[in-house]
């Protein structure tokens, strides 16, 4: 049996009177791609926020590779190898495209803090080449010296992806990676996700687009009103009447 990379156990989270997550249990096996689907407001993003330390759960714990990560600082969790790709592009608007990708590369190399004020960014050829490599993979290489403010929304999403991938994460959390992308860009992204999967990276993906989910996911959890109502292989989920009713019903013909 392969190792569990992520183990979420008995997690509860409420905002005032609203129960956003209740009794969530989720186990992600190494090397798999696990999709989390569910209607809007089901608690999908909240679950990711708990995993990266943005929110502290009211109850329960998140264990990553045997270490409890609940209660740790976001930057520590990132340094351990949990990387999130954000739904709304969270990039550095004052920097150029390539600098945006180099920042996470420096973070991985230099750890949480390093005084290297007498080095020159221009001299870091390795990191620059790596950044160019990832920009090519997401199709942004020709924009590398632009400031990111001028990018389209779809391009920002792809930049986000490159920023996550360059960190070479042990667990990649993708929050709707194809939202706002054209059909063509979505297909390119699916190809990219498949390529990463071949390398054995473990991924958790939140997605509304069923085409994307069924293309890349090994397992699917269905979240509705803060609870996991079903979990299984894509085939199992497709045939599950409860899921059909809660979520897929309206969409499948």
């Amino acid at each position, binding site marked *: 049996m392969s190792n569990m990379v992520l183990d979420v156990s008995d997690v509860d989270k409420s905002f005032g009177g609203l129960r956003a997550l209740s009794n969530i249990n989720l186990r992600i096996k190494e090397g798999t791609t696990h999709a989390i689907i569910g209607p809007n407001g089901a608690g999908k993003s909240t679950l990711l926020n708990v995993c*990266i330390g*943005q929110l502290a759960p009211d109850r329960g714990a998140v264990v990553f590779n045997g270490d409890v990560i609940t209660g740790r*600082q*976001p*930057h520590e969790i*990132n*340094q351990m190898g949990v990387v*999130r790709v*954000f739904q709304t592009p*969270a*990039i*550095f*608007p*004052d*920097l150029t495209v390539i*600098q945006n990708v*180099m*920042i*996470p590369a*420096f*973070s*991985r190399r*230099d*750890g*949480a*803090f*390093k*005084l*290297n*004020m*007498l*080095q*020159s*960014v*221009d*001299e*870091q050829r390795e990191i620059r080449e790596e950044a160019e490599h990832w920009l090519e993979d997401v199709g942004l290489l020709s924009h590398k010296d632009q400031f990111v403010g001028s990018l389209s929304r779809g391009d920002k999403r792809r930049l986000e992806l490159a*920023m996550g991938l360059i*960190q070479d994460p042990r667990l990649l959390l993708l929050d709707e990676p194809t939202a706002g992308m054209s059909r063509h860009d979505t297909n390119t992204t699916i190809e990219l996700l498949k390529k990463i999967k071949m390398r054995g990276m473990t991924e958790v993906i939140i997605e509304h687009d069923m085409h994307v989910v069924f293309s890349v996911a090994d397992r699917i959890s269905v979240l509705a009103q803060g609870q996991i109502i079903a979990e299984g292989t894509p085939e199992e989920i497709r045939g599950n009447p409860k899921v059909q009713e809660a979520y897929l019903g309206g969409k499948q013909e």
Partner: protein
Amino acid sequence: MTLFKSRKDLLYLAIFALVIFAMPLWLKPFGAGYPDLMQRFAIFGVFAIGFNILFGMTGYLSFGHAAFLGAGSYAAVWSFKLLSLNPVPALLFATLVGGVFAALVGVVSLRRSGIYFSILTLAFAQMSYSLAYSVLMPITHGDSGLQLASSDPRVLDRLFGADGTLPNLFGFSMHGMYGFYFCALILIGCFYFSMRLDRSPFGMALRALKSNQTRMSYTGFNTKPYARTAFIISGMYAGLAGGMLAVTDPLAGAERMQWTASGEVVLMTILGGAGTLLGPLIGAVIIKYFENIFSAFHPGRLYETFSFLPEGVQNFFVTIISPFVGEGWHLTLGIMFMLIVIFLPGGIMEGGKRIASALRNRRASGRHLQSRQFEPAE
């Protein structure tokens, strides 16, 4: 390790150094070519360049940087009194004191960001200002200010038999032109360091921190030590600048710590262009120039200037202009500052960039038109 990573930067620095050292020549027509004022340009240039590392690069607006400037001045004068009239140990000591003081203030202030950070730094600076007149009297000598006296111990000077009554670098007085060249050299060094910092991964991290601090932490950066280091470095710059003030004029008073002095460096940085390397220095030069030249214009001199006009017209001009000069120079400065912030939020540097790109576009479009003429019609 080479000193310069790129030829462009080397050229940039060489031109910068040349322009600074040639100040006495090209400032003369503006009536600013005298050592006292040029020393101030260099000193407040250092202050503003250091402030920019915190405000322009990292995005933390400190309203209490004058406290570090004042602390640096006191440190330098104490070094003159106790150790030697040589400016080198005085400046080292001033820089160190500025840095240590900033480290202490930073522990508390950097727990918050945005407006709360600004208020905390302001509170610390005003506290230091008040303490200088009360509890810290033995160190600051309160109202009378800290001054040199012939009875000072000056241990090192006595030891090596050096004499003199004013700060001097191995006999060269720090008051006149030598003082200016000494300050200019420090300014160039400080500019060079800020340039290196800007080009480094550390500098890029600071700019990313300014851009989106939350995202930085989700990218694996521990943002606290980055902000703290930027704060300490800019505190050291401020301490050094304060030390330089004491070197050129060996007197330290608490008024240097007042909030108006803290506000002045904010104005300098924004006026010149926050986040740019050269902008803060330009802002410092402009503000110090206005302070010294415009404030010296009094009605008598205005009547003299317009004496070639008929009396009625002369009176008219003098009446209109006099509120803006002399005591009223702050009005001119205020109007200029408002115009810049409204029309050029990036400061004078942005204005320069806009002019340069407009010229480039015109040239490019001109060339484009020419080439179009020779294209065969389709």
